[in-house]
């Protein structure tokens, strides 16, 4: 229960906090894709060194990050065994009709690594980027789609609002679950069907309050004169600085290194 909520912004003044959101988002995307280009040990070493350094620079407490990682533990667990047992190749160990192969073991480890990297990098982005900067960054990343007449600004805003409400939603689920437990609800026993049914007392109230919240937010935005079609100007324009340039170069360097190491 004491994990940092996913999507929570941790105010701070680290180098990562000060980077331009567009640079951070670009780097995040690159880092999410880069593992697919890594094949050898040295590639992994280079990538890991980079990510660990970024985590240390961000000033986000390690314990908090590890607890966030724990939220994907079961997915990771399932993936591990799925890859371990289903990848054909040269067998290491046979258990009856199923065999663990060398390729399977490597693939399983690689999958876990990719998942952890994904979660770490994504949390690093939200931990160090304020919601307003996230919106700006998203807009910039999506702006090529403006040509296709997609409402990019609105899309960015919707995504940011959604992100903003993740912690609120988590708190609310926690509160309602406790309230129903106090009424004798049991979320831990029974078969899968029964367990799913037992979640109704949590999800109905959550949906009701989510709709109410959306309604209130819409009213509040209306009352402040929000119009979606308007072109808005910014009080603070994003400007790339030398730090951003440096970061971009470092990330590009990382990409080249990883590709070169193979």
């Amino acid at each position: 229960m004491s994990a940092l909520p996913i999507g929570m912004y941790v105010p701070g003044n680290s180098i990562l906090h000060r980077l331009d959101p567009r640079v951070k988002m670009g780097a995040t995307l690159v880092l999410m894709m880069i593992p697919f280009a890594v094949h050898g040990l040295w590639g992994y070493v280079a990538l890991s060194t980079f990510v660990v350094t970024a985590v240390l620079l961000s000033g986000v407490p390690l314990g908090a990050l590890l607890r966030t990682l724990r939220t994907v533990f079961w997915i990771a667990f399932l993936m591990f065994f799925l890859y371990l047992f289903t990848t054909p190749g040269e067998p290491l160990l046979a258990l009856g009709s199923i065999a663990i192969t060398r390729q399977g073991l490597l693939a399983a480890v690689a999958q876990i690594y990719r998942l952890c990297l994904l979660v770490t990098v994504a949390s690093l982005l939200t931990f160090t980027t304020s919601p307003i900067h996230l919106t700006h960054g998203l807009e910039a990343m999506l702006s090529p789609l403006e040509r296709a007449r997609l409402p990019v600004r609105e899309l960015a805003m919707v995504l940011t609002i959604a992100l903003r409400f993740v912690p609120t939603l988590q708190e609310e689920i926690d509160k309602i679950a406790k309230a129903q437990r106090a009424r004798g609800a049991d979320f831990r026993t029974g078969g899968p069907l029964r367990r799913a049914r037992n979640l109704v007392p949590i999800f109905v109230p959550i949906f009701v309050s989510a709709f109410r919240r959306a309604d209130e937010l819409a009213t509040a935005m209306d009352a402040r004169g929000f119009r979606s079609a308007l072109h808005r100007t910014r009080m603070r324009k994003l400007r790339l600085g030398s730090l951003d340039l440096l970061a971009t170069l470092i990330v590009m360097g990382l990409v080249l290194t990883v590709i070169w190491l193979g």
Partner: protein
Amino acid sequence: MLIQVENLTHIYNQGTPFERVALREVNLEIEAGERIGILGPTGSGKSTLVQHLAGLLKPTAGRVLLEGTPIHSKGATARKLRLQVGLAFQYPEDQIFEQTVFREVAFGPRNLGLDEAEVAARVNWALEMVGLDPVAVAQRMPFTLSGGEMRRVALASILAMRPRVLILDEPTAGQDPQGRRALLDKVGAWQRETNMTLIVVSHALEDLARLVERVIALREGRVVADGPTRQVLSDVKLLRAIGLDVPQPVALLQALRQAGKEVRVDRFLPAEAASEIARVWGLRGSVT
């Protein structure tokens, strides 16, 4: 001894930048049948404390015992114990999920494993206790009721479990003065009828003055006062120190006292204060 709280400490989000100490070394003893008010400004740890009393949180340190058994522990015994404590969260209407009022109120009793006849009897009883007509509302959709009625349905859903300990977290939050008065009078009546242990959380002194005999005051997660209602609510220095408004009658008597009148200051109901002033001024007649 019904409930014992021993060195209870609770820290939210321990080890993250959002770490927050909500309770610090709290020790309490509560006897069966007591009527207790928990007082303190917002953020002082009241809700955290009552969730511990209901066994819904895991203590960071210390423990909570109900009849000598740790209430948070695993297993069937502790679960049975927890079900003897009914906790209505702040804004309990947020937890409503069923399609009819009847099913909503029946949820708790059904979880207790009671048979349907007993469940129906309890639902009727509980709806009557909160001042709703079972015949009129039982088959209605809860979401078509007014806010005040929904709150009463939610409270009925807890009463219907017939808890030995009833805890209400800010039961009057967001209600108008008449609604508050009416609700608190009802709560008093439930307590007299069932003789349960009652714990009411509030930061409004007036709510507690009429209802409880003992007040526990919290400040920044610590118990800073624990005593008879009369004593705690007229302790001007304490109330100011924890950042709460002194009840107006007490403030008036205090001012008279400073002006040299020999009045008692521990009269926090308006009528009591008026009688006290009348007495000192030598006026006769009673004020109601």
